[in-house]
């Protein structure tokens, strides 16, 4: 299958600027596979907890070595070497939950109400112990008469436990369509 944008033709504008170039791995496993279905149920639960701002419950869905990140550069996996919007390991995630919950942060006290939709699930890699899942996420945030859309691709790595209650998020990356542009400041999490 030849790619007409692979080489720059005389007078052609540089292609590929309107999307990112991350490789799209695909396990070829159906969403009805029990492991995939289990992961979809799990991230849907995570999404609902976030919409309800049940952060104290939410943080326990993460493994101790789990990472939550909203990068600015949508191409990168090397979050250490770049500036991110959020790059939380366990300690910072727990501090953030305190901040969002305790009532001192005026942006969190008056945070937008959110409803998010997850869809377009793709199982990238699946094993009996771990799954990498990709999804589209649309968060509509409503505050003082204004709706803002936070649209992005989400990548989850989930470690399966002995039961579904033991499943843990090892990595969640939210790549916003406007991560390099301008967003509002936020009093909630994506």
């Amino acid at each position: 299958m030849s790619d007409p944008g692979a080489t720059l033709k005389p007078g052609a504008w540089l292609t590929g600027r309107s999307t990112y170039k991350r490789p799209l791995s695909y396990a070829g496993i159906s969403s009805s596979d029990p492991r995939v279905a289990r992961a979809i149920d799990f991230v849907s639960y995570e999404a609902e907890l976030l919409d309800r701002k049940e952060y104290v419950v939410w943080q326990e869905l993460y493994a101790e070595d789990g990472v939550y990140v909203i990068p600015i550069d949508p191409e990168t996996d090397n979050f250490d070497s770049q500036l991110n919007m959020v790059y939380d390991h366990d300690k910072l995630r727990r501090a953030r939950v305190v901040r969002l919950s305790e009532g001192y942060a005026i942006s969190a006290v008056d945070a937008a109400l959110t409803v998010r939709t997850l869809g377009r699930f793709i199982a990238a890699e699946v094993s009996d112990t771990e799954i990498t899942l990709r999804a589209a996420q649309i968060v509509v945030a409503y505050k003082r008469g204004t709706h803002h859309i936070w649209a992005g691709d989400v990548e989850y790595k989930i470690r399966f436990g002995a039961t579904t209650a033991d499943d843990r998020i090892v990595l969640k990356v939210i790549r916003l369509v406007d991560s390099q542009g301008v967003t509002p400041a936020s009093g909630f999490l994506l």
Partner: protein
Amino acid sequence: MTVEFTEENIYDLTPDELVLTDRVAGRMYTDPDIFDEEMTKIFERTWIWVAHLSELPKAGAFKTTYVGQQPVIVSRDRKGNIHTMLNRCRHRGATVCETPSGVVNGFTCPYHAWSYGLDGSLRGIPYPDGYEGIMDKSTMGLKKLRTEQYNGMIFATFDHDIEPLEDFLGDAKMWIDRFMAQGAGYPVKVLGTHRFKFKGNWKIQLENTTDGYHFPIVHRSWMATVDEETADMMSFMTDPTAITHVLGNGHSVMQMVPQHTDLEADDGSEPLQPRFDGLVADLRAQGVDEERIRKLVYTVHGTGFNLNLFPNVSLSISFFRTLRPVSVNETIIEHIAIGPDGPPEIVDRVNQERMRAHENFQGPFGFGTPDDAEGWDRVQRGAVGGPELPVMVNRGLARETKSPEGWTTSHVTDESGMRAAYYQWKEMMGNE
């Protein structure tokens, strides 16, 4: 003569009459006509910060940004000269570049392919026979702004007749030099940028960078998460040595951590914070000598002050903060992370630490920024009520003194820096 703001006169007063010694009228935040006038009389008539030199590291490097509401390109040509020009084709007005930054040979308009060099000169027109005898190509380059720089800070202006940049900066120059000392012996470079918007007038942000008073209130939740040393460092509310100087031309500097005002004066007596133990160990493992480690780690949290440069940039402790007025009630802010620009094996680890600290407070999801933005939104929403009611900037007016340098000086929580910015605003808005 002092004018009283009343319901009857508030819309009859000229903009410069809306600034009094100790207060400004709320109408300044909400009147679209004043906003339009500000774009002309301030943003097109003074030096506007557009880039840091590290953002244009080689020939062909460019960034797109704005001067006021006007889109511009800042570029570096093959001779190393920096140019700022309108991002607007001279043919039919299209933008010639919609990429935030990059490296190019020139700029070609996508509409009819008029092409421009890195200095904005018009190089090529397709099918040029239609212009024979009616247009001189040499006069049809991109509109140029005057561009000057000081210590890596690049500014541009539409006004080709105003004072040189260095005169405009005046006493702020030595503070820029002090700020750049956080390069720890290396130049400073941009590491990344957070961008966010708030629904409020640009002057609300202008005030905030010289507002020590809000810090323990608005940033209480951030203070609760930091270690004791950092909390101590930021406990300037009752520290009499934490002071603000007014530097002229609307510029001011607030020193929140006076012991870190002059990073080069470090005598080694202040212990490095334990939270940097890992960083120190990593630098040692890289074979970096102890003196340099001390310098790099001592400067990792930046300087102890915010230097507020009128009207659109602040050198704020460890980063640059810029504001871009979008409309009377919308402003875009950039928080630009910086760090030393040295050999990667030395500075990369340091800059990781700096980026993590920046993420912690700044940006749309930081532990600090969203709370600031909430405060600013609330000011705009409230200020719509009572356009004649004053916004008070009188804190500390009775305790201002003169420093040996002749700078009006007060406590860091006082509003001297705001008064200085508004005085400059008043001067410029009063000009014809």
